[in-house]
């Protein structure tokens, strides 16, 4: 499909522009936030003289455009700059935080895809029946419970009452694999929401697909029900779920702040919160680059799935 290749190429080029857009937007946003690193650092002792002094040391008195240009120039040399607050290189921050985040996200995805797709297919298979109602009610119910409440509940039951699992990953730092048990509860909490959203989308698509003439045709020829569901109906139902999955990966990388805080996992979400709070712009920018790349790649992946399973799309008049 040469058609596909040129499409991919164009998307990658646009992707670079998008990353630039993300970085610029994030810079503007953080610049537009009230206060700067100096004010944030001064905290509850905002002695004006001292704030001015810090500002000078951090070179915050220079025009924003100049600082951004400097930073962007560094970016071209693959240098993400240094933290305003600690003076350490930003790459170090990202590298440290990326480990736990990737571990959590990876584990979550590993479970999420089979579980949510499985539940969606199962619910669709019994549409309107007891199984469907049970699956829908439970996943929706869990979805509607905020993460912190679910997290606290799981901790109280499985860690504090039953004592099966450690309540937090405190003290393990970024080396979470040293004690894999600490990952169980966070992954469960992370799973709770996307399982619902993805399984509902899969369910919706599957109901349509299972009622379609092509599924009926497959059944007529005695293709086993499982095969009809997974090989013939599912491909027509995955496109929206793939989009949702891409969003979920995104969220796993950047937005799992509650889970990271609740279980004391120093991942990217925590770094983001700290950096925004400290107005540590180089670190926020570094994160924006990471998020930009991740988003572009994930969206591209989801769009590839969408294209792949709607092959007629590019052709129609």
């Amino acid at each position, binding site marked *: 499909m040469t058609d596909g290749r040129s499409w991919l190429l164009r998307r990658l080029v*646009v992707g670079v522009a998008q990353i630039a857009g993300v970085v610029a937007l994030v810079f503007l946003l953080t610049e537009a*936030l009230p206060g700067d690193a100096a004010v944030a650092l001064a905290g509850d002792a905002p002695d004006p003289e001292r704030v001015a002094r810090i500002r000078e040391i951090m070179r915050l008195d220079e025009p924003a455009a100049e600082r951004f240009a400097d930073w962007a120039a560094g970016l071209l040399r693959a240098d993400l700059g240094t933290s305003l607050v600690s003076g350490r290189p930003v790459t170090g921050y990202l590298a440290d935080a990326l480990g736990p985040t990737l571990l959590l996200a990876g584990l979550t995805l590993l479970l999420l895809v089979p579980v949510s797709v499985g539940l969606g297919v199962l619910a669709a298979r019994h549409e*309107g029946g007891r199984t469907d109602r049970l699956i*829908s009610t439970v996943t*929706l119910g869990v979805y509607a419970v905020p993460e912190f409440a679910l997290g606290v509940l799981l901790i109280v039951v499985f860690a504090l009452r039953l004592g099966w699992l450690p309540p937090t990953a405190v003290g393990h730092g970024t080396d979470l694999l040293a004690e894999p048990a600490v990952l169980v509860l966070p992954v469960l909490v992370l799973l709770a929401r996307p399982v619902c959203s993805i399984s*509902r989308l899969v369910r919706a698509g599957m109901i349509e697909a299972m009622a379609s003439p092509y599924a009926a045709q497959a059944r007529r020829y005695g293709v086993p029900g499982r095969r009809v569901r997974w090989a013939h109906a599912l491909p027509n139902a995955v496109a929206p779920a793939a989009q949702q999955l891409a*969003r979920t990966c995104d969220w796993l990388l950047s937005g799992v702040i509650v889970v990271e805080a609740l279980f004391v996992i120093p991942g990217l979400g925590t770094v983001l919160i700290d950096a925004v709070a400290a107005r540590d712009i180089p670190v926020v920018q570094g994160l924006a680059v990471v998020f*930009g790349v991740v988003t572009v790649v994930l969206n591209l992946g989801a769009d590839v799935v969408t294209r792949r399973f709607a092959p007629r799309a590019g052709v129609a008049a």
Partner: protein
Amino acid sequence: MNGRAPDGGTGVTAGRGQAVLGLALIAVPLLLAVAGPWFAGEPGPRGVSFTTGQGHWLGTDFTGRDVWRQVLLGGRSVVLTAVTATAVAYLVALPVALAAALTHRAWLEELLIRPLDVVLAVPSLLLLLMTAALFTPGPVGLALIVALINVPDAARIVRAAAAEAAARPAVEAMRMQGESWWRMAIGYVGRSALRTLAADAGVRLTGTLYLVATAAFLGVGVAPDAADWAVMVDHNRTGLFVQPWAVVVPAVLIVALTTGTNLLFDAGLARPGKRGKRP
């Protein structure tokens, strides 16, 4: 295989169980949301925060107010903001996504969807913080912001759900009829993706709720101590172990509301009959 008379198996009952369950779940929260404020009455004196007793049969909340009264007051805004935010999100996302799905100009699609992707890459928390800092939107403004945060996301899902339908011969036939864009996009392509959209919207409804609550805590839109179920859940969390009701009651109401709504959607979309019964 022995012959027997085919039953009139029509499966019209498919969605009934779901409808009943959905109605049962939605009744209480909806009733409380609509009628609650009329029964709330005047605020009584404050108590110590997170305590029970002393006439507060559901205890007190994080600032010592009566939880029951807050529950009575807090439903309307939840229903309103969530519904508005979701509706507005779709109002924007739907045309954009359908336009992208229906166009054959690659550049137009890129123009419509890529900028949204840029917004997607910015953590929503940052967007919220930002708006909190720059504007002081009221509840309506907040609903709009939350809606806008949801637009790129919703647009992508609509786009994916519509991709196949937009390429069907039925759409080509409509073009041959000179059919209006809206009829093609909403009337046919959107209609074809309805089930997926309903599933997404139903779940999104809940997402917007908590985004509003987070925003409230950051000082956007709703007052931080507003009587709002989602805000209650968010703010009373510190007292979860001393005074669970302040979290549990609103959370259960929200759960019932969203689960019920989604089950009703499901029931409404249940296929009237099923094929494939062999007599």
